[in-house]
């Protein structure tokens, strides 16, 4: 960061020259000569960062009716500062201030007239819910903090600003609720934030990767959300949220595996319905990455597990396919990933075309062509649907990748291969920790109190305050 200072000159020309030079004669720097009484003066601003209406109303209009008042009385902007440090002035310019410099005066006025071109507060598209507040974060930190403060109206909600990035510094706000959040956790997060030494931090993804406990894990170790109500719920639960200036995502730490399976909707539904949905999600978790592997293992090695009628059906469908099941599965899975990725980047109108081409044309033709079997198509389709059931996009991607090694293990060693893969996976989950909190809580370490709000959702009066796990 630029820490130097430069005392302002007495001559107007020298001052403007200095600023022009400091900003490398950038073309959006405007210097508007505007005398005050009989003294030469200039209004300096970056046109890309200021709001012309504000300048018009709060600076130029009052000055034209000066009538002997001093400048400090005239300007009606929200904040006005007198300063003699040009470097500070330049910093101000970068934040949308405009400077009024008078000839023969080594102090200038810094007037805040920032332009606010921002998106209106809308519901985040990828986190839409049925019931509950429909607002979402936007790209402005102040607005985002405002949204959170609206939810948590207590003085306990604390905001700490940090700056990350060496050449292009950006502001990060760290939010937590004072008495509910573990002090040790706050210190840990602060330490890791201060240890970030990158030239630029482009997005929250950077912070995420630099802060997580285990960068070599496939599982996401931060929850990210664009919903203020979701964020507030976590904050009240004792978590910490990090919001980067200019990014509509809040990062929430510590994360644990099952938070990726919960949505705010769960608490708006009746508890039995919510529990049922959670149960469906649990099944989807299992099918999303195990179903293809189980199918491959079954048809390649353990077809004796199938009841005899089912065996004939599967076998009948398989005999027309020249490839072993693993090749078949890989072809279909890759086609599916292809379609998914293609659909993601396309506008929604073209996206439908992809759906038709992918679903109907390829899905049907590939079977008729004898490249894959009907049963495999069903399996892959079910897997795909299951992976969309997972509320968190990140967790869903992790699981999608996980199924490939599991499929290979199944193709090599059958059920034992799956048992092998799952053992490694669950050992990994057991040892993973997010900011010192076990990731697989409340399953490992097992806590029955926590289970009430994991696989099912017990009534709110029964869950009450979540138990703080001291168990290992």
């Amino acid at each position, binding site marked *: 960061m630029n820490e130097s200072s430069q005392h302002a000159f007495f001559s107007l020309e020298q001052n403007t020259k200095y600023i022009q030079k400091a900003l490398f004669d950038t073309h959006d720097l405007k210097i508007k000569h505007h005398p005050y009484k009989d003294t030469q003066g200039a209004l300096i601003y970056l046109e890309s960062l200021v709001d012309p209406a504000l300048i018009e109303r709060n600076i130029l209009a009052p000055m034209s009716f000066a009538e002997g008042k001093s400048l400090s009385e005239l300007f009606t902007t929200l904040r006005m500062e007198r300063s003699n440090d040009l470097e500070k002035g330049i910093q101000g310019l970068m934040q949308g201030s405009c400077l009024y410099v008078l000839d023969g005066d080594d102090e200038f006025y810094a007037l805040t007239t920032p332009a606010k071109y921002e998106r209106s507060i809308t519901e985040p598209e990828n986190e839409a819910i049925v019931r509950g507040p429909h607002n979402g974060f936007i790209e402005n930190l102040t607005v985002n903090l405002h949204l959170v403060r609206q939810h948590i109206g207590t003085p306990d909600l604390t905001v700490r600003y940090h700056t990350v990035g060496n050449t292009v510094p950006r502001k990060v706000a760290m939010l937590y609720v004072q008495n509910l959040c573990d002090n040790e956790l706050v210190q840990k997060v602060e330490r890791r934030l201060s240890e970030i030494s990158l030239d630029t931090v482009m997005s929250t993804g950077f912070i995420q990767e630099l802060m997580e406990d285990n960068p070599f894990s496939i599982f996401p170790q931060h929850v990210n959300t664009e919903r203020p109500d979701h964020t507030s719920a976590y904050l009240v639960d004792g978590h910490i949220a990090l919001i980067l200036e200019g990014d509509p995502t809040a990062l929430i730490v510590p994360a644990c595996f099952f938070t990726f399976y919960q949505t705010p909707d769960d608490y708006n539904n009746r508890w039995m319905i919510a529990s049922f949905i959670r149960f469906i999600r649990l099944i989807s978790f299992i099918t999303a990455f195990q179903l293809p592997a189980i199918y491959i293992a079954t048809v390649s090695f353990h077809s004796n597990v199938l009841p005899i009628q089912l065996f004939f059906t599967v076998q009948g469908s398989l005999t027309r396919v020249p490839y072993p099941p693993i090749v078949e599965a890989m072809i279909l899975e890759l086609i599916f990933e292809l379609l998914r990725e293609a659909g993601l980047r396309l506008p929604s109108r073209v996206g439908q075309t992809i759906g038709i081409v992918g679903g109907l044309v390829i899905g049907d033709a590939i079977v008729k062509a004898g490249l894959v079997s009907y049963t495999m198509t069903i399996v892959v389709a079910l897997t795909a649907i299951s992976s969309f059931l997972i509320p968190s996009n990140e967790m869903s991607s992790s699981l999608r990748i996980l199924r490939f090694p599991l499929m290979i293990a199944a193709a090599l060693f059958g059920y034992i291969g799956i048992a092998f893969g799952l053992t490694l996976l669950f050992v990994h989950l057991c040892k993973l920790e997010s900011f010192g909190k076990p990731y697989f809580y409340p399953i490992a370490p*097992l806590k029955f109190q926590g289970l009430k709000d994991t696989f099912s959702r017990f009534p709110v009066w029964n869950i009450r305050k979540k138990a703080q796990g001291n168990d290992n």
Partner: protein
Amino acid sequence: MAQTEKKISARQLFLFIIQAQIGVGVLSIPYKLNETARGGAGITVLITGAITQLIILMFWLLLRKFPGLNLFQICLRLGGRVFGKLLIAGYIGYFVLLGANIMLSAVGVLQRWMMNATPTWILLGLFSIMTYYLAKEKLTVMARFYTLSSALFIPLIIFVSYGLTQARLEYMFPLMEAGIWNILKATKDTTISMYGFEVILVIFPFIDASDKKKLMIISMSNLFVTLFYVFVVCTCLMVFSSEQLRLIPEPVLYLVKSLNFYIVDRADVLFLPIWSITLVCSITSYAYAASVGLAQLFERKSHGVFTPYVNAVIFFITLLPATPLATRRLDVSAEYAAYLFIFILPFAMVFGSKLFKKKVERSA
């Protein structure tokens, strides 16, 4: 970050011991007991459980005398530098041998029942990788995983108890057919299925409970395992007649195989992978104990450095026996090693500590 070894909770201990104890033996004890104890097999298992309980009590007496120390440190304390280290080396060898024995039997069963074409070394390799990955972790992580995999007992118990639908009570009677002496003698065949509880020698100081509570929890695990075995043995004895059992070396699997679950045929193929995870836990306990011993021997803090070597040694030991006879020899040597390292040596240590009244410091 500060690497403080956290302690495991009482509940985790309960499942830890169960996971360590239930091993490969349960599949074949009904067969073995049918040869010797006949209808009294259930009684034999109960007696074995009682004997195990006595040994546990002996371990407890030893361990509580040295608060905060595990077996290896006690060895050093009692035997001095040279003899103590010799003892530690012996125990490491014992743990490795037992781990290898379980692994070999497990792979043998898997090959017989579902993986006939897979080369032995591949299966051994898979087991070695799994155990290595788990055993190198901290005790708390292992305890978490053991707790998690305990959920797998539920399908296993359901599978076996489904067999009760075909049970015929009269097959089991008369209970005393073989005579009391044979029933007692048969305990020799079942003790090997009980092993695993000796890991408490190593993990005892890392449990977050009072000494009394620890004893109670360990006894509860032993009780659970004993009752589970009794249940399995009695189910098998009731489903198969004595003549049938004589022909079936692994009656539990045969029982599961014969059941019709409508959704799946051949439930044994599902049973085996689930059960092999339980076995991984058993082997891991031994591999962990051996690694901790090595860490003590070379005076290092972390056991994780030694786990790869332990697993490599287990892997190579299991590769050695090429014939069923050699496998049998390994089995027998494990049995005798167990007599020495579980019965004789700890007894000597208890006796020794009493005799010399070394450092009698009682803890709360």
